[in-house]
């Protein structure tokens, strides 16, 4: 046991002290924040270019009602015909395009936008939206209804759908409130996190074993400790590195949720009025919920990683170079990729039979289950999944150690699957 501890700490320290580890750990959250903010920034800055549109209105009801904004300015043209306007407002003018509105607005091809360069979807939606609103209002006005404005304001309706998970009490104050949107995003994020950790750190185990073999340190190691201690030391050491990295990220996110989000919520939350955003803010601002989520992440991440790492260790022990390891690597990757595909179907129905079974069967369970958890899953399902996952980890580790024990001393010929099976059965 003392030797396993020594090997764990050696593997752990070697990796954690690397500059690349520190850089990646600190830069990753910044990169993620950058990725989240970038689209907003891009929208803000790409939309700031003011477009001037010349409006020729033959219907006589639209032009006066069009409202200019920061993106688009409407300029009324009383005198020109469409052809003249097109000739004058060519590329050289400061006019972006000509909006022609025929006398019968609702007939085909009656409303035309002729621009000098391709217009944007936002601009087209803005113009079409304004015109149809203007025409709708005009039509309503023709009914000659008194107090139309008041009536319209009165009938305008906004529904706020609150969703809860039934806990059988009928008292929604004790029920857990849900938001499919937030669950969806959390599910994707957590599923991706597990996927990345299992693949990246799993392959790190493979590389580490292969390097140990290639550098011949293995000869010294196996006359100093048992192959099992060496294998477990490597797996657990690298697991500790993964956990350290995630713990740092979790600490950053939780502290952000505790100190940063409340002030952001005060500033914009009320004004935003965006349901999903405020629900997301609410979820992320719930530090207790986040902490329990991280506990589940840790549980499935450790289980999933250990399960796959033991397979990667066995594969690494059987080959002489990382390239040779690809043969086994691609097979190990199969269930991981399958998990990702199933994960996508989880979002349609988190409780479908496929989602249920995939989150119980150990090879796919870590990624699929962690994707389902934000949607609210019965405790017994999680418990069953965890128990099966860890039991399978014990079984694969036992198998892997048998392969490892023989494989690390084999040099030369790349072993076949039947060779591996023989090694497992060797006494």
């Amino acid at each position, binding site marked *: 046991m003392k*030797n396993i501890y*020594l*090997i764990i700490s*050696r593997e752990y320290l*070697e990796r954690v002290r690397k500059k690349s580890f520190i850089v990646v750990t600190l830069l990753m959250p910044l990169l993620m924040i950058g990725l989240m903010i970038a689209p907003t920034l891009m929208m803000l800055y790409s939309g700031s270019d003011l477009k001037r549109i010349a409006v020729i209105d033959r219907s006589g009801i639209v032009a006066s009602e069009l409202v200019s904004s920061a993106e688009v300015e409407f300029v009324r043209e009383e005198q020109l015909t469409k052809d003249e306007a097109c000739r004058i407002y060519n590329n050289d003018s400061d006019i972006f395009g000509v909006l022609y509105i025929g006398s019968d607005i609702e007939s085909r091809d009656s409303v035309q936008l002729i621009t000098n360069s391709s217009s944007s979807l936002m601009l087209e939606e803005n113009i079409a939206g304004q015109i149809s609103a203007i025409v709708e209002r005009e039509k309503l006005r023709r009914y000659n209804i008194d107090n139309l404005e008041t009536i319209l304001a009165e009938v305008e309706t906004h529904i706020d759908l609150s969703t809860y998970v039934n806990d059988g009490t009928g008292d929604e104050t004790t029920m857990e409130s849900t938001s499919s949107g937030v669950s969806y995003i959390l599910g994707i994020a957590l599923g991706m996190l597990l996927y990345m950790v299992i693949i990246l750190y799993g392959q790190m185990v493979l590389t580490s074993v292969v390097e140990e073999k290639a*550098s*011949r*340190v*293995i*000869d*010294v*190691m*196996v*006359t*100093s*400790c*048992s192959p099992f201690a060496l294998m477990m030391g490597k797996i657990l050491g690298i697991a500790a590195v993964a956990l350290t990295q995630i713990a740092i990220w979790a600490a950053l996110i939780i502290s952000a949720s505790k100190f940063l989000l409340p002030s952001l919520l005060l500033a914009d939350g009320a004004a935003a009025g965006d349901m999903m955003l405020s629900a997301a803010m609410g979820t992320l601002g719930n530090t207790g919920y986040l902490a329990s989520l991280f506990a589940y992440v840790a549980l499935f991440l450790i289980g999933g990683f250990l399960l796959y790492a033991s397979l990667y260790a066995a594969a690494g022990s059987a080959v002489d170079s990382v390239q040779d390891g690809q043969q086994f690597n691609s097979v190990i990757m199969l269930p991981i990729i399958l998990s990702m595909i199933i994960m996508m179907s989880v979002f349609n129905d988190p409780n479908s039979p496929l989602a249920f079974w995939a989150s119980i069967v150990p090879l796919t369970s870590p990624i699929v289950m962690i994707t389902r958890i934000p949607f609210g899953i019965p405790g017994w399902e999680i418990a069953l999944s965890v128990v099966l996952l860890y039991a399978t980890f014990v079984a694969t580790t036992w198998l892997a150690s048998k392969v490892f024990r023989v494989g690390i*001393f084999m040099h030369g010929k790349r072993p076949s699957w039947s060779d591996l099976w023989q090694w497992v059965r060797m006494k």
Partner: protein
Amino acid sequence: MDSILKIENVSKSYTGHKALDDVSLEVPRGAVYGLLGPNGAGKTTLIRVITRITIADSGRVLLDGKPLTGGDVFKIGYMPEERGLYKKMRVGEQALFFARLKGLTKQEAEHRLRRWFERLAIADWWERKVEDLSKGMAQKVQFIATVVHEPKLLIFDEPFSGFDPINANLLKEEILGLRDRGATIIFSTHNMASVEEICDHITLINKSHNILSGPVDQIRRSAGGNNFEVVHRADDSTLSAALAERAIIVGESHNIIGGYRESKIYIPRDEDVKRVIAALNDNCGLRSLREVMPSMNDIFIRAVNGTL
């Protein structure tokens, strides 16, 4: 004989190649035991069988009279030929890691390592990274990592390769020092000079077979025991007449200073050396006669060529 390690009829085959064929040998406690043989003879395979890195197809390895088990291996200090050190680690840290794996406490390991680093004049390298070391430097670190826990049995595979003569000498002295403090040392080599200087027992392995085993002086005596160097005043015909049937001249004779000649003669084992001396004294003006011991190098070459 009190033997620490006994190898009985060990065979090991790889696909299409027999690395060890029915090899037996016995290593006396407290010996410096040389495993000799040309490249590819099976020395390293034998060592890997002893350290249980390779499992023999048949035969037994006994340590202190009991079959070797997995746990016993941890009591052996083993330095493989292809040196294995973690390249990214610092030298001191790495030596500490191996010492602690072998069961030393951190304080004890650090204390002993510092002393060893002083002795081998590498104290300044404690903080250096392994990848910055030259081959010889890395060898010294590996040597220390192998011996620091003071095992009863030490196995070195080609310990002198990669060392300059000064450092090879330093290493030889340390190996003899370890023996004096009670360790048994097995090492493989094809450097015969080192064998004559430090081995007291050898086994010569050639083409997977043990072809010669035993104490070094005994082997040398038996391999060359009947060759003598004679210094005398006679010419070749007088000499050969004087020797008559009792001995034969081997090779050329030649003149040396003071009017003497030097000849090599072979006296068969059943002949009485005293009678030969008497005959030479009477007829040839004998000045000296001494037994010539062949060098290990000669024995090695003759044994490998099957002319011993």
